[in-house]
């Protein structure tokens, strides 16, 4: 008697090998380029923050200032400037902004001197992040954490103060994870807004001050509830790595971070995205954050039955990229979703099949399971039971991260009580069917098992095609989410810079050492 679907381990191993071969072919592209936001992220890692008199974020000021020599990496010129002028990075940047200092001029500071200085600075800065990681670990061991599947809810009022109140209320009623959804369009900004914000549309600006405000609120409620509450934001769009840096400094616990989401759903240039993604993930890996990938999004444009294999394929690609950046399986919140048309006969069984299949293929990953959204409608009552079945599939297949569905999904970002009802829904279902996975087995010749085998077989075919054509060409052919994107199209291409031989990113190597990828990193960055 076994609760498994009986998937063929050889097939699964072959899938992984194919995925690795696919990402391996993207490696040279990643290796040979840097981007504006990667360099801004380096500056942030070095400690730069704040805005100039016009409200332009200082990382943007400095990167723009050094635009012409970014191919060598921004760290060395800025370190030289700091040493030469004997200024902290913020003062230096302010003077650059005021036109009082130019970092393009030659300085007396030798490269070796700058490198030594950076080594120290990098250690110091990474220690801050490491301390955050330790604080998190200690809080979790002191306070404990909710059982899996973790209950994940979003706040999205647009106003960080309201968000914090609502997040605390949710945590009091059982939420384990709070995600602050970003305002519509932030991902297309090529800078990070600054300070506390109270005006967003369908979400709240991701700013470091907002991160801090929310972290504080959640720490309070964690202590009160005796349960560590995790905080999530979105490392996507044109500032992917910068967001992760901010998150690392403010002790965020998870980041939405997908290798292809920006390309497909935000029409961001593929090269820009792959480069940004790699460095982002290194920081995620180092700071102990869990990433959440975005396979759910495929099913908002493609059909959940027909395209189930693209979800698995993308999970494997995300996994392969993540591994390369030093993320451990326990940090891989690989995505999938419950999006089959609710009118489908045996649709629940197919959903369950897919959820169990991913569990079996990624036994250690805290899979991130997304609720029904596409077929949610103004019929809140029906929506509520769709969410219940989603919760049942979640507990049955032992998901790691359960993003709770809202009965008002089709109308508005969640109201305070929508979230409460979602938590109540999940508590009832997951408690009442807690050990269902142990109590029943999957019949090898039943609908569930057959569906899972079918999806695996489709994925084998699909990934081999992608391997054959290459990932970039496959994306251009619209193989993912029915959306076609080309290498020379999309936003942010202008922000991709070819590296020269002197390129240096001192944080990459240092982090790589600590996350265990070591010298391997030089193949990628």
């Amino acid at each position, binding site marked *: 008697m076994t609760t498994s679907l009986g998937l063929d381990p050889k097939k699964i191993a072959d899938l992984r090998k194919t995925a690795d071969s696919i990402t391996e072919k993207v490696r040279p592209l990643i290796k040979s380029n840097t981007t504006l936001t990667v360099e801004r992220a380096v500056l942030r890692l070095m400690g730069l923050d704040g805005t100039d008199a016009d409200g332009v974020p200082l990382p943007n000021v400095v990167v723009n200032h050094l635009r012409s020599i970014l191919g060598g990496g921004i760290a060395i010129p800025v370190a030289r400037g700091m040493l030469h002028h004997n200024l902290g990075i913020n003062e230096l940047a302010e003077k650059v902004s005021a036109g009082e200092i130019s970092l393009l001029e030659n300085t007396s500071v030798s490269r070796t001197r700058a490198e030594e200085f950076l080594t120290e600075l990098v250690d110091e800065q990474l220690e801050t992040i490491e301390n955050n990681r330790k604080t998190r670990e200690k809080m979790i061991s002191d306070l404990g954490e909710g059982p899996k599947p973790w209950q994940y809810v979003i706040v999205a*009022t647009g*106003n960080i103060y*309201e968000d914090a*109140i*609502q997040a605390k209320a949710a945590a009091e009623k059982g939420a384990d994870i709070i995600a602050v959804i970003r305002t519509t369009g932030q991902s297309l900004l090529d800078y990070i807004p600054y300070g506390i914000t109270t005006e967003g549309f369908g979400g709240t600006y991701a700013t470091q001050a907002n991160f801090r405000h929310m972290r504080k609120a959640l720490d309070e409620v964690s202590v009160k509830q005796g349960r560590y509450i995790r905080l999530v934001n979105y490392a996507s769009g044109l500032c992917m790595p910068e967001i992760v840096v901010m998150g690392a400094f403010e002790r965020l616990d998870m980041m939405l971070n997908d290798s292809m989401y920006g390309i497909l759903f935000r029409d961001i240039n593929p090269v820009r995205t792959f480069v940004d993604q790699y460095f982002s993930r290194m920081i995620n890996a180092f700071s102990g954050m869990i990433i959440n990938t975005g396979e759910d999004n495929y099913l908002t444009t493609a059909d959940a039955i027909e395209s189930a294999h693209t979800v698995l394929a993308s999970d494997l690609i995300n996994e392969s990229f993540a591994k390369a950046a030093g993320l451990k399986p326990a940090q891989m919140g690989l995505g999938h979703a419950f999006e089959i048309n609710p009118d489908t006969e045996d649709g629940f069984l197919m959903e369950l099949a897919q959820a169990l299949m991913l569990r079996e293929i990624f036994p250690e990953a805290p899979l991130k399971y997304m609720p029904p959204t596409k077929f949610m*409608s*103004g*019929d*809140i*009552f029906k929506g509520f039971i769709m969410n219940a079945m989603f919760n049942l599939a979640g507990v049955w297949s032992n998901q790691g991260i359960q993003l709770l569905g809202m009965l*008002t999904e*089709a*109308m*508005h*970002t*969640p*109201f*305070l009580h929508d979230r409460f009802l979602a938590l109540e829904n999940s508590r009832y279902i997951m408690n009442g069917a807690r050990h269902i996975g142990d109590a029943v087995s999957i019949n090898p010749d039943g609908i569930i098992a057959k569906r899972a085998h079918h999806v695996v077989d489709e994925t084998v075919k699909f990934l081999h095609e992608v391997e054959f054509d290459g990932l970039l060409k496959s994306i251009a052919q619209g193989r993912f989410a029915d959306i076609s994107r080309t290498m020379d199209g999309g936003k942010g291409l202008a922000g991709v810079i070819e590296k020269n031989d002197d390129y240096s990113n001192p944080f990459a190597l240092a982090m790589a050492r600590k996350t265990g990828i070591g010298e391997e990193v030089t193949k990628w960055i």
Partner: protein
Amino acid sequence: MDLNLKEIKPYGDTLGDGAVQLSFTLPLKCGAHSTEAARRLVLSMGFSEAEVVNNVDIGEGFTFFVVYGKGCRSIDVTTIEVAQVKTSVWSRAECNTKAPEMFDRKLIVVGACIGEDAHTVGIDAIMNMKGFNGHYGLERYSGFESHNLGAQVTPENLLEKAIALKADAVLVSQVVTQRDIHMKNLTQFVEMVEASGKRNEMLLIAGGPRIDNALALELGYDAGFGRGSYAEDVASYILQELYRRKTSALA
């Protein structure tokens, strides 16, 4: 949050947004016309915005609507006074200790579910040994002698029994409320007690899921207990209220 208690509004996702969810059926065909009717109906309730998010034919020319209203009227909560039972709640242990200090005999309690109502689980929860939700009933309270007459007792029978047993308190349960049958039954009983001249000799206590203290007082009872009440609430009330009456009579 900065609350103005004189103008409290529902909260959806921002203080004061006045967001309310409504659902109802109109005896109209499903379509644009009835949807507009539903929207206007909700606006007429004092909302500044109303959005019909679901309209569905539910057969026989009826349409079911789900509507979200915004900008609902506000309410001044500073003027609200609720007629709550004023005595404090003692645990069963406390009741058991205090009863003999307050009275030199057991208090006699007679209870029933009157009229055609046969829902005894509620009155049993209060009176029987076993109690409810881990709260034992009055039969386990050493200061009380408890008589539960059960279901479908006529008001006449209940009164007769109460007089015969010299009840200190009479507990009346009403669960069925369709067409306000509970109001009729409760009123009938209180009127009979008054006509009998014994009104001052017994506490009259009503209970049930749709009863609260305010309603009970209105109907002429001494107290009322709704959903979520337990034997200790009732025992505490009886002890304290009868003691108050006893001592104030002496004074």
